[in-house]
C-alpha cells in the first residue's frame, strides 16, 4: 500500500502551469527525493501536498484517504509534517519552545485547564520539555535549548526545523532543501540526521539541490522539469537517463 498517492495533480498561477498533470506514489519507510532544475515546481509540489496551496485539478491520497484541499493542520493531525526552504522559525521563542509547539497536537489544549493553570497542564509541559530535549539532542542542538532563536546560527536553525517537525510525531516528513546555504560540514550533519530519521521508520521526502547528498541517501528519486515528471527510479537509473542530463546541462 502506498503512503501517498498523487493523481493528475495540476496548479495554475495566472496562466502558468507550475505543476502539470503530475502523478506518482510514495511508498512507506524510504527516503524519496524530488529533484529538478530551478523553477521545476518542487516547492510548489510540497505546498500542494501539505495543504499550503489547493490544487486546480487532481487528487492527493494519503493512507487511502482523499486529502485534496485539506488544511495543513488537518494533515499534521494525520501524521504529515514538513520543513521550509526559507526558514520558518518562531523567532519570538527559544529553541526548546519552538520544538514544544511541534508537540502541540499531543498536549492537553483545554482552554479552562490552561486559564486556571491546572496541574495536568504543568505536568504535560514538564513531560513535553523532556521529550523535546531528546529531540534537540537527536539533531545535535541540546546545548541551544534555552537560547533565543534570533541569536542562533543559520545551520542550527535548519536542524531546529527538523526537530520541531519530528515533535509532531509524523509518519511522513517532507524536507524542503534542508541543506540549502550550508557549508559541506553542516551539510554532512544534516545528511546524518536525515538517515537517522528514516531509520526511525519515518518516510522522508526530500527536495534538495545537493546532488551528492541526493544520490547517496535516496532510495527513490523523482525528477521534475517544468512541472512535469521527467523520470523516476533509483539513483543509478536517474543518473544515466539522457533526459535528466539534458534538463540539467541544457541540450
Amino acid at each position, binding site marked *: 500500500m502506498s503512503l501517498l498517492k498523487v493523481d493528475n495533480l495540476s496548479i495554475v498561477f495566472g496562466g502558468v502551469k507550475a505543476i502539470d498533470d503530475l502523478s506518482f506514489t510514495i511508498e512507506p519507510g524510504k527516503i524519496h527525493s524530488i529533484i529538478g532544475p530551478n523553477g521545476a515546481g518542487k516547492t510548489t509540489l510540497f505546498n500542494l501536498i*501539505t*495543504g*499550503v496551496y489547493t490544487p486546480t485539478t487532481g487528487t492527493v491520497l494519503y493512507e487511502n484517504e482523499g486529502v485534496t484541499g485539506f*488544511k*495543513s*493542520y488537518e*494533515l*499534521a*493531525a494525520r501524521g504529515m*509534517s*514538513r520543513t*521550509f526552504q526559507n526558514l*520558518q*522559525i*518562531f*523567532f*519570538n*521563542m527559544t529553541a526548546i*519552545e519552538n520544538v*514544544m*509547539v*511541534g508537540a*502541540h*497536537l499531543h*498536549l*492537553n*489544549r483545554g*482552554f479552562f*485547564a*490552561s*486559564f*486556571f*493553570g491546572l496541574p495536568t*497542564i504543568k505536568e*504535560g*509541559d514538564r513531560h513535553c520539555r523532556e521529550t523535546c530535549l531528546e529531540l534537540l539532542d537527536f539533531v545535535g542542538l541540546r546545548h541551544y535549548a534555552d537560547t533565543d532563536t534570533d541569536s542562533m546560527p543559520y545551520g542550527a536553525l535548519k536542524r531546529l*526545523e527538523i526537530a*520541531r*517537525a519530528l*515533535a*509532531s510525531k509524523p509518519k511522513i516528513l517532507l524536507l524542503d532543501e534542508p541543506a540549502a546555504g550550508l557549508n559541506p560540514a553542516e551539510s554532512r550533519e544534516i545528511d546524518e540526521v536525515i538517515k537517522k530519521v528514516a531509520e526511525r521508520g519515518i518516510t522522508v521526502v526530500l527536495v534538495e539541490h545537493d546532488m551528492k547528498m541526493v544520490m547517496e541517501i535516496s532510495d527513490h528519486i523523482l525528477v521534475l522539469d517544468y512541472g512535469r515528471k521527467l523520470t523516476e527510479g533509483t539513483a543509478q537509473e536517474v543518473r544515466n537517463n539522457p533526459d535528466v542530463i539534458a534538463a540539467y546541462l541544457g541540450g
Partner: protein
Amino acid sequence: MDKLKSPRTGGLLILMAIIAVLPAFLDNAFQVEIAILIFFNAIVCIGLNLLIGYAGQISLGHGAFVGLGAYGSAILTAHQGWDPLLSMVAAATFTGVLCFVIARPILKLKGHYLAMATLGMGIIISIVINTEDQLTGGPDGMYVDGLSFMTSQIHWYWLIGAVLVFSVWASLNLIHSPIGRALRAVHGSEVAAEVVGVDTTQYKVLIFVVSGVFASVVGSLGVYYSNFVTPDIAGFFHSIELVVMVVFGGMASTFGAVVGAAILTILPQVLTFLHDFEHLVFGLILMLTMIFLPKGLVPTLADLFKKGDKS
C-alpha cells in the same frame, strides 16, 4: 525557593504586595480614584496584550468592547431591572459572541487591513451607542445604580485590585501553556504553526474573544463603580489609548501591560500643571519611548537586568 525567583511567581507577589500597601500612601479620594482607574485599564490591557503582544493581531477597536460591557450592564440593570452580576455576565456573553462572529472575517486580514477593519468595527459600535438614544441616552450618557454592598470607595479598590491580580495570574497561566505557545507561534510564523497542527484561525478567534470578554467585564465593573457612562468609553480615542498602553509597557509582557496602564494613566494627571502643553509633552514622551525603547518599557528593562546578571 526557585519558584519565588521565577519572574512569573515573583512578579505576581510583587504586584500583590504593591496593591496591599498602596492604600497606606494614598492621601485622598482622588488618588484612590486614580489607582482604581489604573486597575481597570490594566485589566483591559492584559487581555489586549494577549491579542496584540502574543498572537500579533492588532485591534484598534477594543474601546468598543469596553463600551458594550458598560452599556450592556447599564441597560439591563437600569431598564430591565436585572441583577448587576447577571447583567455583567450577560453583557460579557454578548460581547464574546459578537467577537466570535466578527473574528473569522476580520482576522483573515493582516497588518494595516486588520487595523482598518477593527477600527471600522469600533466606530460602528460607537455610532450605534450614540444614536440609539432611547436605549443608551445618546451623547448625554446614562445613569445606573451602583452595587448596594459596595458602600465605600476603598471596597472598590480591593475588589478591582483582586480582579487585576486574578487577570494577571490567569494571563500568565494561559501564556505558559500549549495554548500560549500556539498563540506566539501564530505571531512567529502562521504557515509553520499550521504544519505542526496548530489551527491558527481557531486560536486567533479564541484570543480575540478572550480579550473582548476582558474588556467587556471591565466596562461592566466600571459602570457600577462610577454610576454613569458616556459614549466616549466606546470611542476611537479610548481604543487608541489602550493600544498605546500595551505598546508602551511592552508587547508580549503581561507585567508590561500593567506598567504601561499605570504610567499612562498617571502621566496626564501629573502633566496637568503644564496646561496647554500637556498633550505636547505627553506625545513627546511616547515618541521618545518608541525611539529608545522599541520593545517597550518592561522587556527592555528585563533585558538590561539579564545582561547585568551575565557580566
